[in-house]
C-alpha cells in the first residue's frame, strides 16, 4: 500500500490534457465523435468498475444511463433548458435519486440476483418509454443543441469540439474524484466487501450501507454519461439508451477495461468503440462476431482487462 508511488492522478491529468489539446488539432470529426461516445460511456463504466471491485455486476445500468439521457432531453424539450451546467447536474441527480431508492432493494442481493434485479428495473423503464408516445415511443425525440455557460455554438463542428473539450474536463474530474474515493476507507471497502463481508460487519461497518453508497455513485455516473451521450448524439430513444443491450455494452466495456485503475474505462471504452466501428465496416452483417471473439479473448487471456496488460508491462520494466 505504501511502497509504490501512485501516478494515477498525474497520469490522468496529463492524459486528458493531451487528449483534449491534441484531439482538437489532430482528430478528424468522425474520430472526435467516436471519442465523445466512448468517453460518455466510460463515465458509466467507471461506476460499474467500482461495483465490480465490490464483487457486484449490474446488468441494468442502462436504467440510469437512459434516465440521464432522457432528463437532458426532456429539460430541453419545447424550447426548454439547454445549458449543460444545468442539464448535466440534473441528469446526474435524477439517476442518483432513483439509484438511492432502488438501492434499498438491490443492496440485499448478490451475484446473479443482483445482476438480474438491476436488469429487471431497467426493462421496466424501457417498457414505459416504448409505450409512451409523448416521449416519441420507439423513435424517441431530438435533444436541443446545448449551450455552454451561455455560449451557443453556431455550427455542428464547433458544437462537437466544445462537447469534446467539456467532456475531457468532466472525465478528468470524475477520474480524479473516483480515484481519491478509492483511496479512502470507504473506497477500500470495495475489495474488502468482495473478499469478506462478515469481517467488514465485525469490524463495525454496515456492508449494506457501503454497497448502497457505491450503487448510488454508479447510478449517478451512469446518469452523467447518459446525459452527455444525449447531448453528443442530439437524440434519445429507448433502444440506444435504455435497452438491455446498452447494459450489456456497459458490462462488456467494464470487462474489457478491467478494474485496475480509473483510467482503464476510458481506454477500454475507446478500444471498444474502435473495434465496433471497424468490425461494422468490415463485417456489416456479422460485426457482433468480432465483438464476441474479442470478449472471449479478454476473458481467456486478459481476465484483468486491458489495464492488466499495461500493469504487466510496467512490472516487467521494474524487474
Amino acid at each position: 500500500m505504501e511502497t509504490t508511488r501512485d501516478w494515477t492522478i498525474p497520469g490522468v491529468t496529463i492524459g486528458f490534457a493531451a487528449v483534449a489539446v491534441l484531439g482538437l488539432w489532430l482528430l478528424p470529426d468522425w474520430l472526435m465523435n467516436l471519442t465523445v461516445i466512448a468517453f460518455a460511456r466510460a463515465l458509466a463504466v467507471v461506476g460499474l468498475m467500482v461495483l465490480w471491485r465490490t464483487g457486484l455486476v449490474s446488468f441494468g445500468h442502462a436504467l440510469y444511463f437512459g434516465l440521464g439521457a432522457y432528463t437532458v432531453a426532456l429539460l430541453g424539450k419545447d424550447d426548454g433548458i439547454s445549458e449543460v451546467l444545468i442539464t448535466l447536474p440534473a441528469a446526474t441527480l435524477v439517476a442518483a435519486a432513483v439509484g438511492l431508492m432502488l438501492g434499498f432493494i438491490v443492496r440485499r442481493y448478490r451475484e446473479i440476483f443482483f445482476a438480474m434485479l438491476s436488469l429487471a428495473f431497467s426493462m421496466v423503464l424501457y417498457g414505459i418509454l416504448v409505450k409512451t408516445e409523448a416521449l416519441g415511443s420507439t423513435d424517441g425525440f431530438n435533444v436541443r443543441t446545448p449551450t455552454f455557460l451561455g455560449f451557443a455554438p453556431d455550427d455542428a463542428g464547433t458544437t462537437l469540439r466544445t462537447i469534446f473539450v467539456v467532456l475531457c474536463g468532466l472525465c478528468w474530474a470524475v477520474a480524479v474524484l473516483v480515484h481519491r474515493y478509492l483511496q479512502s476507507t470507504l473506497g477500500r471497502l470495495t475489495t474488502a466487501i468482495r473478499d469478506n463481508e462478515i469481517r467488514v460487519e465485525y469490524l463495525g461497518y454496515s456492508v449494506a450501507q457501503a454497497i448502497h453508497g457505491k450503487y448510488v455513485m454508479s447510478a449517478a455516473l451512469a446518469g452523467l454519461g447518459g446525459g452527455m451521450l444525449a447531448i453528443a448524439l442530439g437524440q434519445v430513444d429507448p433502444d440506444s439508451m435504455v435497452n438491455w443491450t446498452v447494459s450489456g455494452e456497459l458490462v462488456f466495456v467494464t470487462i474489457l477495461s478491467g478494474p485496475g485503475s480509473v483510467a482503464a474505462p476510458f481506454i477500454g471504452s475507446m478500444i471498444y468503440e474502435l473495434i465496433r466501428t471497424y468490425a461494422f465496416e468490415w463485417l456489416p452483417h456479422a460485426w457482433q462476431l468480432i465483438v464476441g471473439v474479442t470478449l472471449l479473448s479478454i476473458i481467456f487471456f486478459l481476465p484483468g482487462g486491458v489495464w492488466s496488460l499495461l500493469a504487466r508491462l510496467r512490472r516487467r520494466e521494474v524487474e
Partner: protein
Amino acid sequence: MSALLEARGLNKSFGAVTAARDVDIAVSPHEIVGIIGANGAGKTTFVNMVTGWLKPTSGRILYEGHDIVGRTPREITRLGICRSFQVAQIFGSASVFDNLMIALGIAEAKGLAALRLLRRPDLADKADALLARYGIADYRNQSAGTLPQGVRKLLDIAMAMVAAPKVLLLDEPTSGISSDEKFVLMDVVMSALKEDGVTVLFVEHDMEIVSRYVSRVVAFYQGEIICDAPPLVALADPKVKEFVIGEDLHNQTLLKGGALQEAPDARG
C-alpha cells in the same frame, strides 16, 4: 465486582434442536474465561448470540448493564465486543498490512471520516505496531490469502483488536494449528491481550491450552452449562470428564499448574 458481560436465561433453538438452554454467565472485567464442550455443545452458538450473529429465542444478554439482544454485529462491535473466528475471517486479496489498515480505517470511519485517505502515516504506524505486537511483521507485505494457518489466526485476532474492545471472544484460536505452534501462538495472543486489559472469552477444545491460560472454565453440554469453575476444579469435575473431555482421557489426572498428564496408576 459487577459483571461486564452477562447472559441471563439464554435459550436458542433451531427447530427441534436446542443449542442453548437457560444459559447464565456473568463475566467480570479483565477475566479470562475458557468455554469448553464437545462438538455441538453450544459453544459457538453462545459466541454467535453474544456477538449478534444469532438472535436468542429467549433470554437477555447484558453488556455494561444494557441489553444487547437484537443488535447487529456491527453495533455490538461498536459497543466494544469483538470476536475472532474458528476459520479466520480476513481479506484474502489484500496484504497483511492492508488488512490491518482497512480495519483501522473502519474503526475510525464515522460519517465523513470514512472518506479520509486510508494511506496515512498515523494509521500506518498503528498497523506496524500491531504487526509487531502479534508477531506477524515478517508477513507484512504477503497476501493474506497465502498465509499459513497460524498467521491467519493471529491476523484475525489482531484485526478484532483494532477497535480496542472491552470484551474479546475467540472462537477456537488454536484449531487447525500444529501442537508445536499452538502454545507459541497463544503466548503471543494472551500477552498482547493482557497488556490491553481486555476481558477474554475463548472457545477451546484443547484442555492443555485451557488449563494454562484461563482463570475460569465454563463447560457446555447439549446447550447447557454443566460446570462453571476455576480450571483445576472444572477439569476434575466428573461431568466435564465424561461429557467434555471424553472417555479416552478418563485415565488422566490434572497436576498442579494445570498440565494434564497420564496418571501413573492408570494402566495398573
